[in-house]
């Protein structure tokens, strides 16, 4: 979806402000939210792109006003409710009134080492890779109403495949519960001119990680 989360290239947000000696968490609830998210992910309650999509669907003012972990809270509540892990009433009341659903596994202290290692997103290829390093490609001009990882600023743009990053689960499918639908992933490089026009900084190049369905071979 073309939401306000897709902010690459947007003007008007001001300077980057760096907090000196920033703590890991600014409040204890932030750590709890992060840990709960890890635990629910380990339990396979939902996948990372479900979390992202839930946050993308927040009203734009909320998305921009909320802090990073506040967005996590709102996104997590949405997934918990929509996927039937608890009801809105239970979350509001702060107590469960019915037993939980069965989950495939549970994050406990004994499995922590395993759980803290990031899972692999590699998936078995379904077809040979269509592109190879050096290929000139054009990103497609797609505007799905649902989750995608092709940012607006890089749509319909001419780039060069730099590297194939293997075959991965496909976020656009995962987020709408249509399975992993494995796709080849490529690093695609664009000149700043191609992205931002004739006045762009000639020394800048930008790459995105582009799934194969985002790309077509460029005619020239």
């Amino acid at each position: 979806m073309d939401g306000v989360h897709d902010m690459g290239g947007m003007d008007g947000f001001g300077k980057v402000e760096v907090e000196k000696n920033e703590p890991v968490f600014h409040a204890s609830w932030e750590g709890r939210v992060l840990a709960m998210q890890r635990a629910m992910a380990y339990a396979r309650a939902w996948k990372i792109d479900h979390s992202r999509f839930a946050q993308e669907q927040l009203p734009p003012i909320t998305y921009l006003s909320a802090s990073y972990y506040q967005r996590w809270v709102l996104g997590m509540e949405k997934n918990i409710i929509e996927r039937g892990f608890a009801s809105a009433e239970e979350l509001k009341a702060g107590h469960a009134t019915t037993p939980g659903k069965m989950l495939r596994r549970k994050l406990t202290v004994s499995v922590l080492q395993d759980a803290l290692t990031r899972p692999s997103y590699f998936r078995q290829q379904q077809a040979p890779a269509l592109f190879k390093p050096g290929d000139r490609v054009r990103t497609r001009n797609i505007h799905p109403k649902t989750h995608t990882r092709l940012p607006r600023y890089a749509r319909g743009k001419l780039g060069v495949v730099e590297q194939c990053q293997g075959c991965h689960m496909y976020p656009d499918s995962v987020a709408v519960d249509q399975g992993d639908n494995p796709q080849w992933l490529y690093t695609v490089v664009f000149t700043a001119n191609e992205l931002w026009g004739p006045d762009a900084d000639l020394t800048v190049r930008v790459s995105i990680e582009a799934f194969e369905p985002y790309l077509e071979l460029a005619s020239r």
Partner: protein
Amino acid sequence: MAAHDHGDEPHQHGSELSETQLRVRALETVLSEKGYIDPAALDVIVDYYETKVGPRNGAKVVAKAWRDPAFKEALLADATKAVGTLGHVSRVGDHLVAVENTPKRHNMVVCTLCSCYPWEILGLPPTWYKSAPYRSRAVKDPRGVLADFGVTLPMDTEIRVWDSTAETRFLVLPMRSAGTDGWSEEKLAELVTRDSMIGTGLPKNPSEIR
């Protein structure tokens, strides 16, 4: 929190935070009562991110690459595998990619769509990395962003911005600081700042840590 810092809305930090605190407490209670989560495991996770993983992990990798050409080559070829050979650093999942700064090319990492970041090697991202100013500007005006960090690069240095739009995660291998011949890995690691591994900063000079 940076998202609140634009100063244009009458946010009431106090009441908002306590509302969020209450919501988070409710979440944890409900998820525990449902049997989905184990609060004791949450404690360990929080402690892990607060004390066990952070930029020091990445700094050790960078310092080793600076001293050990074979390791550097392995790191640039397959960072996940190379980092996996270092028992004293954490195990990292697939998809870690190391990108090398040279006199000709400076790398900078961003995630415009959310805030993807190499947690396993750098810990949790700083607030600025997750902020709208950084996410919006890094891909369009990287030199302007570097200026916000007080960094000026030669005008002919190529700047390569990596937008982390998938599960690949990028670690910038900065250029080794001058005047560090013969330094130990431990000492070199002290020069390696978090920002230098994101690409918004440079490693410290020897004079800055003495």
